[in-house]
């Protein structure tokens, strides 16, 4: 008899190791977190009820669901609240809980006026603050890990915030297209379109800078970027993240007439690019060799 599972090739060699702890489930949770929080954030500025509800549900079911699927022991998930002092994951969970409670209260208050006048702005502000934390904490959770050069650059939280705002603006344009604040305000549509293009350009520069920094930071960073731009992941990263997510969607938004189908197409392109970004950043993350200098310091 022989062992059922052969040892993966390369796992006993000195070299860059690939991270496998965070995969598609975690990427999906991140995707829904930043899409939902971004949508809620933008929708609250316009008192756009449907947007706020959808944003809250995306965070509650999409993000929390993705995390629950990822966890090895999901029933103990509440324990993740116990290390807010040092852990970004813990801070994120606290923000999600605060957001779900205050966001739901704010939505109820907007529709039914259930809160006293003195509490209403406080709850709205708390919901917005918690929402903002969800928009950025995933970037901090990743950049906190100095182990993986591709993630550890300081630009990861900026990328998270940019993507979250961009998702929020585009989803607001789609979901609120027939709502009075957009249907009767072409200048508001134009403003959101300009904001979307600006965020796409900013996002493109942020992602490019992130890759540039990683490439020159370490051996693992160089390999990760090579995989994304020239290696096995290039056929996904370049056309989806860069092409569909930024370039094509920005050009389409610039020339598109303010019609629902066009807004939907741009949002679809951008969200596809963003999901690809989340998955590929996890897939391409790598550890530096623990002792690559073993030979060099001998000689």
């Amino acid at each position, binding site marked *: 008899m022989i062992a059922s599972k052969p040892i993966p090739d390369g796992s006993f060699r000195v070299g860059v190791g690939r991270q496998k702890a965070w995969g598609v489930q975690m990427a999906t949770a991140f995707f829904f977190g930043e899409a939902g929080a971004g949508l809620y954030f933008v929708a609250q500025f316009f008192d756009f009820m449907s947007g706020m509800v959808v944003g809250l549900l995306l965070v509650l079911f999409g993000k929390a669901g993705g995390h629950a699927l990822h966890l090895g022991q999901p029933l103990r998930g509440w324990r993740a609240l116990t*290390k807010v002092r040092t852990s970004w994951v813990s801070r994120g969970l606290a923000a999600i809980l605060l957001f779900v409670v205050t966001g739901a209260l704010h939505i109820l208050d907007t529709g039914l006026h259930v809160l006293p006048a003195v509490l209403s702005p406080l709850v709205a502000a708390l919901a917005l603050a918690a929402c903002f934390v969800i928009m950025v904490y995933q970037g901090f959770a990743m950049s906190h890990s100095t182990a993986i050069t591709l993630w550890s650059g300081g630009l990861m939280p900026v990328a998270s915030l940019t993507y979250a705002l961009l998702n929020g603006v585009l989803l607001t344009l789609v979901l609120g297209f027939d709502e009075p604040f957009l249907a009767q305000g072409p200048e508001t549509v134009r403003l959101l379109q300009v904001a979307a293009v600006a965020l796409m350009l900013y996002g493109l520069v942020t992602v490019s800078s992130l890759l540039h920094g990683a490439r020159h930071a370490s051996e693992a960073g160089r390999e990760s970027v090579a995989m994304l731009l020239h290696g096995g992941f290039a056929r996904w990263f370049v056309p989806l993240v860069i092409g569909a997510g930024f370039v094509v969607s920005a050009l389409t938004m610039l020339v598109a007439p303010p019609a629902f189908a066009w807004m939907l197409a741009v949002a679809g392109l951008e969200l596809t690019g963003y999901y690809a970004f989340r998955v590929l950043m996890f897939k391409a993350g790598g550890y530096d060799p*623990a002792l690559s200098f073993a030979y060099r310091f001998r000689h």
Partner: protein
Amino acid sequence: MAKWGMVFDLRRCIGCNACAVACKQENSLPDGVFFTKTLSEEVGEYPDVRRTYVPTICNHCEDAPCESACPTGATSTRPDGIVMVDRDKCIGCGTCIVACPYDQRTRLEPEMLNEGLFGGGRLTPFEEQGIGRFTVGTVVKCTFCHERVDAGQLPACVATCPTEARIFGDLDDPHSRPRQLIRERHGRQPLPEKNTNPRVFYID
């Protein structure tokens, strides 16, 4: 209180992997899980080619990034410097795995414990006696064989190494063997740029 640490002598390591076998036996590790690995690397160009061996293990870092990243407090450092994982607190989020620069942590997937070495869900007697030590979905790592250390013994890998390439002892004691070796042969920590202050040193 001692601060336990280890020194790897790269001149002595012959890549026999007896340490890995002893570790798996001592800790009843399931198939596919290693607390220590001896990596190999070919260097040079023909005809001057050499193979070097690099033993790796959890470095029990003084500033352990896995501990600060852990959202539940499951990872903690004992007063003697050994970094532990409490399987009753671990939720299996993997944050410690991506925080560890040395890739020394493993999450126990169901198939690792249930499938058995030879497949088909039939566990060997060795696997059956060891399965109670583990909880599916939680993270495991080297503990310097803390039960042996508490009993005054050496970690299994150190006791087994036939060339004495692994030297274990109190890093706070200036007269201990690891401290002497680090001092005399300029011991180096792995990836010092990560600022984790590992308690494992390499000498050559």
